[in-house]
């Protein structure tokens, strides 16, 4: 990429904007004071937005990572000969599971895990498994039978078939599942503040409760940018991956 086009890259601009909102929200005090003269102070005054974002991102990263490992792992097991019988069950589970709204999953996890970050983590983790599982199953099943047959016929071991053939060919589909999981989790983590987790949703919930609409706007801007940026990064990763894989 040349220098010129680098500056035209929306990812760079959005990242800069995002960092500005994270660390420089207080610079916007006059703007919010002018727009919402009745709200004092006009800028959310709890934890800094940087701090909130770190908590929020940490929660999303850990839960999505765990969900990705479990989701891909379960799909691998279900597509082996030994795990064949679990496959219809897992497929049904993944499909039915996704019809639950994430907020409902959060509500269910409170009585089970109490208040704070733990029920939020559990909700994000459990809900995050579903798209990964579903896409991994589809991705591995989508590997042409002829390719698998030729591989086996040439003497690749089952492990080599999985590592060198199935996973690379399924990678773009699996990544798409992880992408959905992460983006949904970024949004759901915000609702985690209703059950006591510290996230970028905290100013939103606080603002709604105390009728301070500027806090809601500030939180929403940061979460929105965070989600858009993450999605763009996945888009880049997907393009990279497609250059190397999935030439079928």
């Amino acid at each position, binding site marked *: 990429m040349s220098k010129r086009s680098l500056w035209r890259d929306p990812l760079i601009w959005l990242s800069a904007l995002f960092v500005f909102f994270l660390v420089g929200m207080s610079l916007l005090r006059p703007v919010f004071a002018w727009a919402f003269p009745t709200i004092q102070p006009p800028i959310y005054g709890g934890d800094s937005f940087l701090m909130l974002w770190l908590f929020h991102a940490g929660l999303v990263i850990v839960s999505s990572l765990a969900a990705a490992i479990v989701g891909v792992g379960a799909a691998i097991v279900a597509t082996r000969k030994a795990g064949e019988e679990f496959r219809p069950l897992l497929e049904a589970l993944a499909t039915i599971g996704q019809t639950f709204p994430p907020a409902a999953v959060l509500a269910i996890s409170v009585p089970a895990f109490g208040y704070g970050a733990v029920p939020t983590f559990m909700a994000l983790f459990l809900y995050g498994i579903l798209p990964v599982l579903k896409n991994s199953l589809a991705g591995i099943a989508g590997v*042409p039978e*002829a*390719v*698998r*047959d*030729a*591989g*086996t*016929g*040439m*003497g*690749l*071991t089952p492990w*080599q078939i999985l590592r*060198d*053939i199935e996973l*690379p*060919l399924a990678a773009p589909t699996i990544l798409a599942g992880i992408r959905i999981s992460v983006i949904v989790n970024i949004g759901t983590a915000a609702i985690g503040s209703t059950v006591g987790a510290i996230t970028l949703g905290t100013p939103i919930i606080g603002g709604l409760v105390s009728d301070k609409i500027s806090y809601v706007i500030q939180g929403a801007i940061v979460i929105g940018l965070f989600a858009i940026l993450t999605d763009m990064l996945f888009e880049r990763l997907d393009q990279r991956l497609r250059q*190397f*894989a*999935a*030439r*079928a």
Partner: protein
Amino acid sequence: MIELQHVGKSYGDKTIIADLSFTVERGAFCAVIGPSGSGKSTSLRLINRLIDLTSGTIRVGGEDIMSLPPEQLRRRIGYAIQSVGLFPHWTIEDNIATVPRLLKWSEAKVKQRVEELFALLQLDPATTRLKYPHQLSGGQQQRIGVARALAADPDILLMDEPFGALDPLTRQSLRTELARIHKATGKTILLVTHDIDEALELGDVIAILRDGKLVQFGTPADILAKPANDFVRDFMGGASLGLKLLSLGHVRDHLRPDAAEGIAVPADAPLTEALSQMVLRRTDRLPVKDTNGKPAGSIFLSDLVG
């Protein structure tokens, strides 16, 4: 050498292969033909243990196939299939190098072998080496599939309708090429096909299967001249059996020194081509040219049946 002794395969009480025995000598080209569901593909897949035997024994190069781990056995046997199954995310070079790398050859040796194979299959390494399978035509992909099967220089090559999905022209050119490769390398080849002409052209011996049983095993000339039963006669061509038999002979073996008028037929053409030309030109004799295009004599209609 490939030996099948009383080989059987069944799923539950459904028998796919029943008591199949035949031997393909070292360096021979055996074509396995039969109608759909005759068990010809199954018999092939039993040899490299993609399917497990129910009964009987199979020996490859004198060794019982059950005495080796399946992966090790398969790396010693070339395998090419109709759907090719090239790895779409690997370059042509890497696809060809699959088995040599599984066998942990040195990278220098792998490179050298890939080059040899490009030469053997008359492919241009400069334009193909770093391409991906989807960038090649069906015929080229199939050629790479054959190269990949030959990569680790196996003594035995198993081919399951390798040219089945190609257009007639490409198919014919690959057939000719396979015959040339067989001659050049001396591999023992077992080819499954449902195309009788392909079997007749390529096979030193032909195994005819029906309902999982061997109906006849012999040279193409034997089978055409003495079909074991009505099924073989009909399957091999029925009324055109004589023409099939004629196609096995070559003009060069029926030459006369006499001269004849008209456009010459090549000496290495099959006799059917000579007959076809005679019918077209309404004549009972044709001039013959050798491979250099020089006059080599003539062929008479009466020689075709002699």
